[in-house]
């Protein structure tokens, strides 16, 4: 349990489990997130099989009843957002990268950091245990609207719903602690000479995401307490029969829920920026514009939440206001995409695996972004709300964020994390085996949504207009694509673990990158550097004219002409 900086490293399990080193905690977050991703993926497999082949005895699962279906979709959503996207994108990359990229030896509060992981792990255990209690896991959708979520006689999961809520609340607490740590670290512990403009974009984005999270989650924590009391103690905060209002929960939830979208989007955008600049050998086009658009998006994201509620009982006059703000948020996001595309102009693009992921992120995310306009515009949302169009839309945003963005990050920083290179061939097989099936899953779902198919329905045979053969064929196509995609993930897992053993030695800076983390050993030792680096310039000084090398690490003083790279 020592958090001292002596270098005798005992490799016992306890010293690993209770380490306060930011890199170890980052890895713990990443592996927990990956394990949860497998569970979430398995859930997706189970309910997609049910949709494609209703009533089928799904291999490795069994028959999916309507109650289990609800529970599966609910927990698939919850896990993928709260236990995969958040821990991996913010906590894992944040923990691993922040001290390394801003040039300090650890987070400012190492023990708080460990505590936040431990609470997070506890929340994951609580969530998993909720699947096995009497009545099964919670099945009221990840939005958990009362009264369905508030009363056992409606949701029929007396324990599952409360455990689910408890797990989510614990997870919020973990990320509040982690977020305070991230923000404080970046604000205070930057390397000497590192100004606001010298912070790599991914760090900016993680910090902005943490701020957004912190500013929006409070009402929902209060709401979770209220809902928990409704479930277990019989209060009536959300019970219309006794003076409560269920719509209040919707507001509490979405006031957090919409900024949450940007909480996970921004880090993925940041990873993409860093990876693209390295492999296009380009300076980020208009660094400050990216920053301002990110901040603008963050601020605007607080003004749009009720577009999730257009038809769920809010006053129709309010919908007009929220349509305007929602469509306005497309401007900073579009601008950010333009900047990223402009960054490619005049580059020298190397299509390595991380670069492929980063480019795929941008290409796919744009589809997700533009389809959001259909839903933000109140008029068309009347028809498309709660349909598969919504589902396909947010998977076109969340999948690039939580899967493609994460793979870009993992494949890019893998050499730094483990000191080994990943296999490029397998990486590319995995890339195409993920991205192509991904589109094959969700393009049919867009069409189904336009065809009037609603969400969270376990079997479409009960709706004559949706039971037609052509629609069922699309469902089968999506499911088969999903299975193919899941199979290709084993290529990644194999590559990940095999490269640990027999991968090529990475050296300090295999990608010839500028940022500070590449100036130390791979993997970095405890304390990160023997002597902490200073910072002399921005992170994206690639292809500077008049220099022999096409990169210019941040830690090289101006008077040293040649880079000291490995």
């Amino acid at each position, binding site marked *: 349990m020592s958090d001292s900086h002596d270098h005798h490293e005992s490799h016992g399990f306890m010293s690993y489990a209770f380490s306060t080193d930011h890199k170890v905690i980052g890895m713990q977050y990443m592996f927990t997130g990956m394990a949860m991703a497998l569970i979430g993926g398995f859930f997706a497999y189970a309910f997609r099989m049910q949709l494609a082949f209703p009533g089928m005895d799904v291999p490795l699962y069994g028959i999916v*009843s309507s109650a289990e279906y609800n529970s599966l979709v609910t927990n698939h959503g919850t896990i993928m957002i709260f236990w995969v996207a958040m821990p991996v994108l913010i906590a894992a990359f944040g923990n691993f990268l922040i001290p390394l990229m801003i040039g300090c030896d650890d987070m400012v509060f190492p023990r708080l950091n460990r505590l936040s992981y431990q609470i997070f792990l506890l929340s994951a255990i609580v969530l998993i245990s909720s699947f096995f209690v009497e009545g099964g896991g919670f099945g009221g959708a990840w939005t958990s609207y009362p009264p369905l979520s508030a009363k056992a006689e409606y949701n029929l999961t007396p324990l599952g719903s409360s455990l689910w809520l408890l797990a989510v609340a614990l997870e919020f607490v973990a990320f509040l602690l982690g977020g305070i740590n991230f923000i404080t670290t970046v604000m205070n512990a930057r390397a000497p000479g590192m100004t606001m403009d010298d912070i790599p974009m991914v760090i900016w984005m993680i910090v902005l995401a943490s701020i957004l999270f912190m500013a929006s989650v409070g009402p929902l924590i209060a709401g979770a307490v209220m809902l928990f009391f409704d479930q277990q103690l019989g209060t009536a905060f959300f019970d219309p*029969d006794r003076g409560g209002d269920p719509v209040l929960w919707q507001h509490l939830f979405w006031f957090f829920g919409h900024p949450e979208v940007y909480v996970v989007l921004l880090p993925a955008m940041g990873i993409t920026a860093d990876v693209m600049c390295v492999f296009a050998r380009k300076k980020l086009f208009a660094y400050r514009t990216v920053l301002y658009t990110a901040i603008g998006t963050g601020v605007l994201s607080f003004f749009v939440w009720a577009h999730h509620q257009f038809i769920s009982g809010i006053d129709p006059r309010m919908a007009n206001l929220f349509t305007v703000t929602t469509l306005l948020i497309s401007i900073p996001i579009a601008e950010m995409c333009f900047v990223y595309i402009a960054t490619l102009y005049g580059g020298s693009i190397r299509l390595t695996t991380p670069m492929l992921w980063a480019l795929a992120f941008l290409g796919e995310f744009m589809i997700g972004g533009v389809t959001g306009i259909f839903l933000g515009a109140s008029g068309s949302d009347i028809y498309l709300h709660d349909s598969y169009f919504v589902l396909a839309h947010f998977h076109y945003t969340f999948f690039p964020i939580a899967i493609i963005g994460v793979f870009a990050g993992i494949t890019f920083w893998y050499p730094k994390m483990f000191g080994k290179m990943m296999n490029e061939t397998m990486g590319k097989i995995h890339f195409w085996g993920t991205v192509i099936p991904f589109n094959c899953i969700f393009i049919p779902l867009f069409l189904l949504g336009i065809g009037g198919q609603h969400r969270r329905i376990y079997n479409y045979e009960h709706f004559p207009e949706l039971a037609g053969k052509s629609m069922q064929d699309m469902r089968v196509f999506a499911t088969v694509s999903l299975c193919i995609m899941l199979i290709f993930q084993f290529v990644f897992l194999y590559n990940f673990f095999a490269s640990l053993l027999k991968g090529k030695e990475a050296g300090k800076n295999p990608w010839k990158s500028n940022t500070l983390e590449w100036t130390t050993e791979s993997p970095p030792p405890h304390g990160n550097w023997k002597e902490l680096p200073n910072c002399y310039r921005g992170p994206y000084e690639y292809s500077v004219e008049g220099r022999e090398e096409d990169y210019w690490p941040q830690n090289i003083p101006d008077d040293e002409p040649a880079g000291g790279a490995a």
Partner: protein
Amino acid sequence: MIERYVEIASTYGGNIDALILLIAALVGFWLVLCEVVFIGFIIKFREKPGVRGQYITGEEKHQKRWIAIPHYLVLVCDIVIIVFAVNIWYTVKQDLPEPDVTVRIIGQQWAWSFVHPGTDGLLDTEDDIKMVDELHVEKDKVYHFKLEARDVMHSFSVPVFRLKQDAVPGRIITGWFEATKLGSFDIQCAEICGIGHGMMAAKIFIESPEEHQKWVALNDPTEDSKHTSTVAANNAAAN
């Protein structure tokens, strides 16, 4: 375009479809433009031996123009979409035309109940026709519906009308529609409402005036002596 998948059977269905098409055209343009430029850049600026990347900060005015101009154009598109979207929203949800008939729609786990006004055309009278999972309406008449929920949230969705409205317990939400096509169509529940959500299907029957009269007469609870006692008992039970 959407008509090929789902028929339009309400007066405003066509407007909503047109709005979706308009948005599709506007955002489709931007999406295709961006993707083409994006993929074009990837191809054009692939690594070539001896060619270094260019050093472009993007901070200078003539460079920023490439971002600023599209960004103003996006704003223009947004405004166009806002105008049409708000306009349609106003017609469908805010400004209800005077009703010819009013029906009550009640969602519960897991069925839709409908109260038709019966022969006298008024709700909450003796001759209300109460049905489960069957809504009978007359073509070309403005209907108001009073949407309620007994237990949890449900969502009254009629895809052929392009209409959707959540039913919230504790609230009575009023909406309207005017059917334009004869036939029977699906009513779905679009808001998760428990383990029977996937089976909460009802039907809407759009009938000509004659057919509708016939149906009303056939189901009039006050006409049939056999039903009289039932209704009295029902009303007693409801209190």
